[in-house]
């Protein structure tokens, strides 16, 4: 099975939000907010149940910038289009009690809308804060990696709309190679902090990976996410130990009076 995914490159993003618009149009998602948030030029602030692509406007101090004055410190934009990571070890998929969240033949993590009953347990189980409940539909929703388009042989709407190829779609193995090549090239050009986020130590490997030139935390990306299912075994062992002790104590206390 060939797994497909995204490679999103911060250095190529121009912040046009064509990916956000294309995603909403194809998937029939309503607009959320067109107002100013105070967070740079960001309108939606996060991914949500109805925003499956989100262009981040991180700001950082530029090393050497033209146009800086005493009043205005030299700033630069770091633009990155965020999306569901389609983890190999997906927290949402582990947590789902109904089996609504599955991995498809293209390797993406997909919520079956006819199975999900809106329990919402997947929401706090995602270490990236991606999946969310849509209150009107009563379902958990997130990026589907355009499952319907892949079925028809087309690429996802966001990747097709991206005018700079900041978003590239393809087989994960190809993207891995392409990403490594791009990171090498950027480092040679002096962007020493450039990293490829989403290799196997992040949630078992992400099918949607990112090239960033800043510390990953600047984009709210956790450096070493702890996968929730790893807490099930320690929690269960502690529960069994406590249950056995409780049963012995209750037995002793109930056999005392004769």
């Amino acid at each position, binding site marked *: 099975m060939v797994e497909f995914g995204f490679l999103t490159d911060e250095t190529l993003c121009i912040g046009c939000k064509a990916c956000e618009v294309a995603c909403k149009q194809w998937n029939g998602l309503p607009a959320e907010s067109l107002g100013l948030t105070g967070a740079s030029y960001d309108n939606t602030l996060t991914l949500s149940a109805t925003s499956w692509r989100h262009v981040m406007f991180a700001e950082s101090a530029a090393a050497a910038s033209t146009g800086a004055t005493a009043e205005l410190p030299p700033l630069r934009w770091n633009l990155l289009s965020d999306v569901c990571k389609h983890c190999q070890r997906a927290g949402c998929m582990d947590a789902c009690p109904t089996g609504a969240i599955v991995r498809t033949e293209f390797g993406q993590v997909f919520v079956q809308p006819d199975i999900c009953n809106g329990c919402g347990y997947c929401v706090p189980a995602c270490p990236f804060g991606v999946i969310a409940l849509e209150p009107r539909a009563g379902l958990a929703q997130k990026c589907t990696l355009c499952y319907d388009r892949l079925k028809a042989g087309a690429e996802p709407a966001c990747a097709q709309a991206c005018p700079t190829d900041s978003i590239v779609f393809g087989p994960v193995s190809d993207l891995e190679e392409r990403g490594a090549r791009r990171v090498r090239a950027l480092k040679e050009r002096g962007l020493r902090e450039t990293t490829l986020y989403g290799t196997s130590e992040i949630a078992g490997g992400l099918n949607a990976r990112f090239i960033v030139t800043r510390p990953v935390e600047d984009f709210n990306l956790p450096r070493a996410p702890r996968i929730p299912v790893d*807490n099930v075994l320690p929690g269960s062992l502690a*529960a069994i130990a*406590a249950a056995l002790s*409780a049963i012995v104590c*209750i037995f002793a206390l109930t056999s005392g009076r004769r």
Partner: protein
Amino acid sequence: MRAICDLLIRRLPPRGSDARPAPRGYHGVPVLRRPHWKWHIPLYFFVSGVGSGAALIGAIAGMSAGRGNDVIARRGQAIGLLAVATALPLLIDDLGRPARFHHMLRTFKPRSPMSMGSWALLLFGNLTGLATAADGLANRVGAVRYATWLRGGAALARAVLIVPAAFVASYTGVLLAATAVPLWARARAVLPPLFLVAAVSTGAAAIDLSLGEEDRSARATVKDIETAALAGELALVALLVRRLGEYGRPLVARPWGQLFWGAVLLGQIVPLLFGLAHAGDRPGMRDRALRCATLVGGWVLRWTIVQAGKTSADDPVAALDFHGGRN
């Protein structure tokens, strides 16, 4: 032993001077998403705790030889049944699509605490129902032979009930731990025992309140169980606070600290001290009031832990720190 100590009390390593500063994040936007749970789910944690604790006490009492144990056994299973009847509407009403509640039983998924909890609740509800029905019928049938069979059936159902009762009492702690929320995930080995012991203390309090003045030995027995459980609960609260370290701030300080410590004082320390000081006394009205305090304490404990988890999920610095290797 070392591993257990690590899981229960190991403190966070200090951030060394050479380490990276606290992560900055993106415009202060939360990294994680808080669960939508309002009052249904914390109330379910409390109600299922009372019911499973009472049923666990009842099931064990039914098998041991103490005086007054038969009435504890019957009351325990009845409270368990009542709790399931209250819990199911709460759980179903909390769903985004209540009409699809039966999808919970599409799969059997040990990786998902919510899936396993659904199955355990199904088994728990059926066994408490069977035991209660068999006991009730046994008191009505005339023939001695049939009554004996029915009582045997009830005893068997109660014996099997020990497993799902202990499961329902503790899995809610595993359910919170198996999330990305720093405050819950950090307490992965403390929350399940704490919820189990709180289920036993509140279950004992509920059985006591259901007993009449004439059930003196039964009341004395459940009072002993409650006192022992409260002692364990206090020890686990201390472990929880120590284990959480800086991630525990939403629970032990603002915004939930006052409520949390109030519940520990009035719902745990006070009933425990009275239980120890008046261990041999005849149960009276003051005891009823103390049992109510234990129940309210058990409810506020669940409420504050759930609410503090939401506050923890909203904190991007805690999330980036926890999911940056300090977990």
